[in-house]
C-alpha cells in the first residue's frame, strides 16, 4: 500500500541571467528560486492496484516517484510505502520495492546481465532456490535466454529494457515504481513489456505506479489514473470515468463508397478528420446507434470503428486549463 498525504517537495534552484557579467556576479552573489516540484499531493494506492501517474513534462511525476522510492526526502507531508517511511531506505523497505527508470540503467555496462542478477541476489539476500525460480520465470516471460550472457553494452535498447526489468524484479518486490519503462521502444516491445507488467501484477499481487508518455501503456495497464500538473493533483480516479466525464462523445470512423454533401455529414456529427473517402466524426454517445444505422443502411459505409476519444486529447485539454509556466523538474 502507498499513502501520500499533503506531500510537497521544493527545490532551491540557482538563477542567473545570461552573459559574462552575470556569470561573474554569481560568483559572489547568488539568487535562488524555490521551485515547487510537488505541491500538496495526497493519494492512497491499495495493494495490487495498477495506477497510471500522468502529467506534462516537469509536472512532478519523477520527483514523486523518487520520494516514494526513498531517493528524495520530502519537504513536508507524510509518505508511507508498504508500512515504511521511504527516505529511511531500510533494508526491509528496499527489499519490497523497485524503481525502473527508462532512462537510467542498473545493469553493469560491460558485463552480461547475468552478473548484475548475481550481484542483486547477493545484496538482496535472496535464497538460492527462490532466485532460481524467479530467474527462470522472468527468463521465460521476457524471453531473456539468449541475452543473459551478452555484455549489456551490446544489447539493443529493447533487449536492455527487458533485462533491466528482470534485474529490478529478481528480489520479487511487491511495489513497482515504473518511470517511462517503454521509452524509445518499438510498438511490439512496448506491448511485450505491458503484457509482462500486467502478468507480474497478477501473479504477485504487486502494486504498480506507472508514468509513461505513451498513452497506450496507460490505457492498457491502468484502470486508475492520477494526474498532476505543476506539482498539484488535478485528477485521481477511474480512467474510463475520466474519459466519459471530460469528453462523452465517441469517435466514429468509416469509409464511404461515394462523396457525401457537407450538410448531410453535419447531420451525422462533427467532422474531425478526412482522408480520401475515410472520415472520422465526433458523435454524442446517445446518438451513436442512430448514426451507425444510417451509415450502414442508407450510406453503405464500410470499415466502421467506434472509439473513445484519445486520452492524449483529454489530458492536453486538462493541462491546458492549468497551464502557466511549468516548473523545471530535476532530472
Amino acid at each position: 500500500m502507498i499513502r501520500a498525504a499533503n506531500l510537497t517537495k521544493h527545490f532551491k534552484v540557482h538563477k542567473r541571467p545570461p552573459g559574462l557579467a552575470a556569470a561573474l556576479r554569481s560568483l559572489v552573489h547568488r539568487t535562488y528560486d524555490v521551485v515547487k516540484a510537488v505541491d500538496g499531493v495526497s493519494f492512497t494506492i491499495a495493494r495490487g492496484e495498477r495506477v497510471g501517474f500522468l502529467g506534462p513534462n516537469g509536472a512532478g511525476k519523477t520527483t514523486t516517484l523518487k520520494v516514494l522510492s526513498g531517493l528524495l526526502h520530502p519537504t513536508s507531508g507524510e509518505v508511507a510505502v508498504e508500512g515504511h517511511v521511504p527516505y529511511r531506505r531500510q533494508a526491509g523497505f528496499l527489499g519490497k520495492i523497485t524503481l525502473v527508470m527508462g532512462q537510467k540503467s542498473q545493469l553493469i555496462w560491460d558485463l552480461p546481465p547475468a552478473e548484475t542478477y548475481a550481484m542483486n541476489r547477493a545484496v538482496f539476500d535472496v535464497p538460492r532456490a527462490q532466485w532460481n525460480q524467479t530467474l527462470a520465470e522472468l527468463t521465460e516471460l521476457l524471453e531473456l535466454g539468449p541475452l543473459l550472457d551478452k555484455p549489456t553494452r551490446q544489447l539493443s535498447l529493447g533487449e536492455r529494457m527487458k533485462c533491466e526489468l528482470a534485474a529490478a524484479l529478481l528480489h520479487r518486490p511487491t511495489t513497482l515504481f515504473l518511470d517511462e519503462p517503454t521509452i524509445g521502444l518499438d510498438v511490439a516491445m512496448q506491448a511485450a513489456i505491458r503484457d509482462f507488467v500486467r502478468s507480474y501484477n497478477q501473479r504477485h499481487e504487486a502494486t504498480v505506479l506507472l508514468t509513461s508518455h505513451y498513452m497506450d501503456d496507460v490505457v492498457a495497464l491502468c484502470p486508475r489514473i492520477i494526474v498532476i500538473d505543476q506539482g498539484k493533483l488535478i485528477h485521481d480516479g477511474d480512467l474510463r470515468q475520466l474519459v466519459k466525464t471530460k469528453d462523452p462523445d465517441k469517435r466514429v470512423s468509416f469509409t464511404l463508397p461515394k462523396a457525401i454533401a457537407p450538410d448531410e455529414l453535419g447531420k451525422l456529427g462533427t467532422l474531425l478528420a478526412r482522408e480520401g473517402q475515410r472520415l472520422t466524426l465526433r458523435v454524442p454517445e446517445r446518438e451513436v446507434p442512430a448514426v451507425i444505422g444510417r451509415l450502414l443502411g442508407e450510406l453503405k459505409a464500410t470499415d466502421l470503428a467506434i472509439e473513445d476519444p484519445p486520452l492524449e486529447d483529454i489530458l492536453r485539454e486538462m493541462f491546458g486549463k492549468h497551464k502557466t509556466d511549468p516548473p523545471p523538474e530535476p532530472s
Partner: protein
Amino acid sequence: MRSAPSRTLRALPTLLQIGVAETVAYRAEFLVWILTTTQPLIMLGLWTSVAREAPFRGYSSPRFVAYFLATLIVRQLTGNWVAWQMSEEVRSGAMAMRLLRPIHPFFAYAASHAAAIPFRSLIALPVAFVLLASSGQSALSTDPVQLVLLVPSLALAWLATFAMLFAIGALAFFLTQAMAIANLYFGLFSLFSGYLMPLDLLPGPIAVAAHWLPFRFMLSAPVELLTKSLDHERLARLLGGQLAWTATLLAIALALWRAGVRRFESVGG
C-alpha cells in the same frame, strides 16, 4: 531479512567475484591505470642519475632503486580510482540505483576495487622479484618482524587510500567538479607520501608536515618497512600512525557520505 553486517558479509564473495569480472572486462582502462602508476620508474631513473657519482644525502644508487621499486609495488597494490567512479555515477544518475540496494555503497565499492588487487599483483610481483635480484639484501629490510608487519601495513595503506578517495568521491554530491579536488589531492599525495622522493629528502618544514599528514601512511609506511631498518619504537609509531589515520579517514569518508546523501535526498539526482 538478516542484519546489515551479516547480509554484507554474505554478499562479499559475490561482490568480489563481480569485481574480478569487471576488472577483466575493463582491460583497456585497467592497463592505462597500471601505466599511470608507473611514475616511480621515472623517478627511479631521475634519482639514480643524481646518485650515480656519490650517494645523495645517504641514498646510494641501489638504495634509490630499492626505494622506487618498493614504491611502485605499494602503489600498485593500494591505489584505486573510486573517486572518479563515484563522481561519474553522481553525474550520470547511476548513484540513485546504487542507493536502492540494501548494502552500504562503501562496501560495494570496496569489494569491487579490492577485487582488482590480485591482477595488479601480476605487475607487482615481477617487480618485487626484480627488486630482490637487483638490490639484493643490502637495500632491503631483512628483519622478520618488519616483514610480517608489512602485511597489515599494506592493508591499512589500502584502506586509508580507499577512504581518502571515497571521501573525495562523496564531494561529488556537493560539487559539480569534484575531480578538481581529486587532482589537488594527487598533487599533495605525490609530494607528502614519498611518491616523488623519499620523505628523508624533503626540506625541513615540508618533511615535518609529511610526518604528520595522512599521505605518508598511504604509501611511505609500507615502503619504509621494506627499505629501512626500524627499531621497535619507530615501528610502533609507524603502525600506530597508520591505524590512527586510517580510522580518521574512514570516519571522515563515512561522515561526508552521509552528508552527501542527505544533500542528494534534498536536491535530487
